[in-house]
């Protein structure tokens, strides 16, 4: 996973630009039916889409199906990418619509173990416990939000996307994105305070 902690903004911008050029080159080959290029694109986007869809749908089986449905659209409809946005924006927009569709077919309950699975990371036992509790609380609180609020928070904090790109992904005005994030994080804070009050 890409981490940008401590890296300069210029280096990050340069990396993003070359990654975008690579994505465009791969997608051009996918348009021509190049399955190897498609596999490369799939492996690049799998972790990012998996994380996004895990937080959006909260069910492992739904995540796997939605991820492959998303990439199947990329394979079959690659010629409709018109370079008006980044490849990543185009793919995430497909994933967002797929997630909303999937959510209409399942109940909202979080699959047992899903939050723990997302929260796992190596560290000392005591720190691990506190960190796990915090992560688990945040992830559970996220699930309590509407899909529209959840998606913009996930894309902002989990994927580090600029607001203009998020607006294109969820297909709404920039001001709506800002409002959703503002109200979403206020709700998240309230939910986390309630959770902290309930803990022994």
């Amino acid at each position: 996973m890409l981490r940008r902690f401590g890296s300069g903004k210029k280096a990050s911008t340069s990396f993003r630009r070359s990654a975008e050029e690579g994505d465009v080159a791969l997608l051009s080959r996918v348009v021509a039916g190049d399955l190897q290029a498609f596999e490369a694109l799939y492996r690049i986007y799998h972790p990012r889409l998996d994380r996004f869809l895990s937080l959006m749908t909260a069910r492992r089986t739904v995540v796997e199906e939605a991820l492959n449905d998303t990439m199947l659209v990329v394979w079959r409809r690659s010629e409709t990418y018109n370079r008006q946005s980044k490849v990543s924006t185009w793919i995430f927009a497909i994933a967002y619509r797929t997630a909303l569709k999937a959510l209409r077919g399942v109940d909202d309950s979080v699959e047992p173990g899903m939050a723990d699975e997302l929260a796992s990371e190596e560290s000392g036992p005591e720190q691990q416990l506190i960190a796990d509790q915090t992560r688990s609380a945040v992830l559970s609180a996220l699930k309590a939000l509407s899909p529209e609020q959840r998606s913009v928070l996930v894309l902002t904090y989990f994927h580090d996307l600029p607001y203009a790109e998020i607006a294109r992904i969820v297909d709404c005005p920039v001001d709506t994105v800002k409002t959703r994030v503002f109200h979403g994080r206020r709700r998240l804070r309230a939910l986390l305070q309630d959770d902290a009050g309930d803990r022994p």
Partner: protein
Amino acid sequence: MKARIFPIDTAEHRAAQELMPWFVNRTLDADEASSVARHIAECARCQKDAAEQNALRAVAFAAESGGDVDRDWAVLRSRIGAMPPSAKPAPEISKPRWWKQWLPITVAVQAAIMLSLVLVLVGGPLRDQRYRALGSPPAAVEPNAVAVFRSDATNQQMRDALHAAGASIVGGPTVTNAYLLRFNATAGPDGLARLRVQPGVVSVEALQGDAPR
């Protein structure tokens, strides 16, 4: 410098609050970022908020993907393999905008021309609307002359004579070994006379007034 508590409804504070998530994820442009940074430096409430959002972002980055890329790829690969070849549409070559605008008009004009050609081509046969089965005899053609060939005339001589005069056999031979002929429109007014002088021809007589002389 000591931070102040800003009134919550000032435009500067509201703008900073609105942009804070993207200040934290470092995707604001330079002007927006410096404006928010200036405000945070002076606003205790926003400093606390920025710290909370950084903590949230740290949780977010700790959330690793739980998927198995090899297994998921194998599943998708089999789905693609099961699709018919036509399921992957042929790539569309990027065309200029004017082409897309004129395409429907061009197609409509082509369709109109093709329809006109079809009507012209089938118009003649359609005028004769009697139904004919494949085994039916051809439509009767009225003879306008009768000819008698020598008994030893060869097929080749008969064909050459008819070609030279612009006539076709439409009936016969009769009991008197005469053939009914039809002079075509290109035979000219002296068709009968030309046929009479051909080798192998015994006699040629007109049957109707429209026959050549």
